[in-house]
Structure formats: C-alpha cells, structure tokens
C-alpha cells in the first residue's frame, strides 16, 4: 500500500506541526571499514560503529491559537520558543488520517525518541506565505512502538 506524504507526520513535544508541507525522518549508521587480508576477493567489509537520526520539517508560518495551530498543532512561534528553550523534546513519526490528517492510524507503528531542536529558519518573502524549516537531532535511540 502506497502512503501519501500528508499521511506521514511528525509530532514535536506531543503536537503536530501546524500547516506542515513536508517532513523528513533521517536515520543513519556510521560504518567503519573492517576489511582485512582475509576479506574475500578484495570485497570491503564494514562494521557498525554508531547510529544517529534527525528530523526536519517545512511548514507555513502560523501563530498560536488559530484554526491551524490549535491545541493539537504547534505554530511556528511555538517551535521557535522550543529552540530558544534549548531543551530536549519528544519526537514521534507516525501514520495519520482523518480530521486535518492528525488522527493516528489504528495499529500503525510509531517511531519515537528524544531529540534536541537545533535549527529553525524562517522565510518571509513579499506576497508569499511565510514559511519555516525546523530540524532536531536525535539524542539517544529512535525506537519503534506498536500503534494504538
């Protein structure tokens, strides 16, 4: 089953990012070359020496307490405040559907972990919607859990 992008969402601190237009979950492993003279036929061999993950999202600029940034959705200002607070937050990546695409899909796996928000970039061009991009770096494991 193919899943459309609007049905894959990030939650930051337990809230969806309001008016998000895209999001990325990036998981990476550090590999070290462990090839030796014993490696068959000159093929490289690798060893996992570390794992990391990060998230990023793009969204329209919204302000708190509006139809977009309600009790269930973080505005750009909420996200900016998160960065300024320099605190670890809970991140979840999940499949959604329903009203505002903010209803978790029954039984779908959720990936969650703690992350440190480390970057926000707000763009305000004349005659265009204000936008922002936001990034956070995983601080510890990203773990799958069974959906509700």
């Amino acid at each position, binding site marked *: 089953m193919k899943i459309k*992008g*609007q049905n894959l*969402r990030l939650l930051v601190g337990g809230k*969806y990012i*309001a*008016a*998000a*237009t895209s*999001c990325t979950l990036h998981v990476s492993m550090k590999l070290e070359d462990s090839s030796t003279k014993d490696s068959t036929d000159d093929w490289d061999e690798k060893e996992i020496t570390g794992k990391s993950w990060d998230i990023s999202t793009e*969204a*329209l600029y919204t302000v708190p307490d509006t139809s*977009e940034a309600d009790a269930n*959705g973080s505005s750009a200002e909420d996200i900016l405040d998160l960065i300024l607070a320099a605190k670890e937050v809970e991140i979840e990546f999940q499949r959604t*559907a*329903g*009203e*505002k*695409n*903010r209803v978790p899909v029954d039984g779908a796996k959720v990936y969650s972990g703690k992350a440190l928000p480390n970057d926000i970039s707000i763009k305000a061009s004349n*005659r265009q*919607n204000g936008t922002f991009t936001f990034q956070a770096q995983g601080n510890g494991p990203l773990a799958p859990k069974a959906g509700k």
Partner: protein
Amino acid sequence: MLDTDSFLVSAIKADSRLNGAIDGNIFPTAVPVPDEDLDNVPLPYVIVTYDGMTQDTDTKDQSGFESDSDINTCRVEVVAESRESLAELISDARRAIRKFFEEGNGDGLSVEDYTVSAGRVDYDPLKPCYYQDLTYQITTPND
C-alpha cells in the same frame, strides 16, 4: 471560482470614467461576440476572460484532496485605436480594479489575495488597433 471574471467586469463598469471611455463596450466570456460582428465593434473596448484555476499551497492539515484556496486566472484585454489611448485605458482599468479590490465591492466574492501583470502591447493591422492584456491571479477560498 468562476465568478472572478464577473468581479472584474463589475469593477470596470463601476468606474464611470473608464466605462464612459469604452462606451460600455465590455465583453465578458459569457457574452461572446459573433465572429462576423468583431470588426464592427467600435474602439475602444475591453474583453474579460476566465482562464482557469490552480490550487494554492497544500499543507498536511488538509484532510481532503484539495487545497483550502484557489488561484483563479482572469485576463482583461484592452483594445484601443492608438498607443496613447491604450496606455491610458490600461492605467484606468488597473486603478478601477484595484479600487474595487480595496473597497471590497466584490458582490460577495471573498478575495484572499491577488496579483496583476501585463503582457506586451500588440498591434492588429487588419482592424487596425492596439491591444494589451492585464492578467489577474485572484486567490479565493475553496468553499
């Protein structure tokens, strides 16, 4: 929204100076002029057309298939006997439409935003006449 072209027609008709200058000769898409009559339309005149619609920026909060807003493209073609008259009419049309947008006289049309651009000045040696298009992109809610 299909009535955005009617909005522009209303704006031009509401401007007495402009409407007087074209002697009421404004032709919306819905009232086409038969080909055989085209050469007999006295200069100057204005044609308003509805050129289609695209959707505004989508966000993940839209649970339906469509965006919350539509961007409608309408064209205002001004035709005049001289370059000077064309420039004056184009300027008057822009002013009349801008006033209509600013004062919210839109016959109930809800406008979120609009942009305007102008095409090149062309010359038709057969009529003969000068003509130029103003292209309006009007953002309206997708109700």
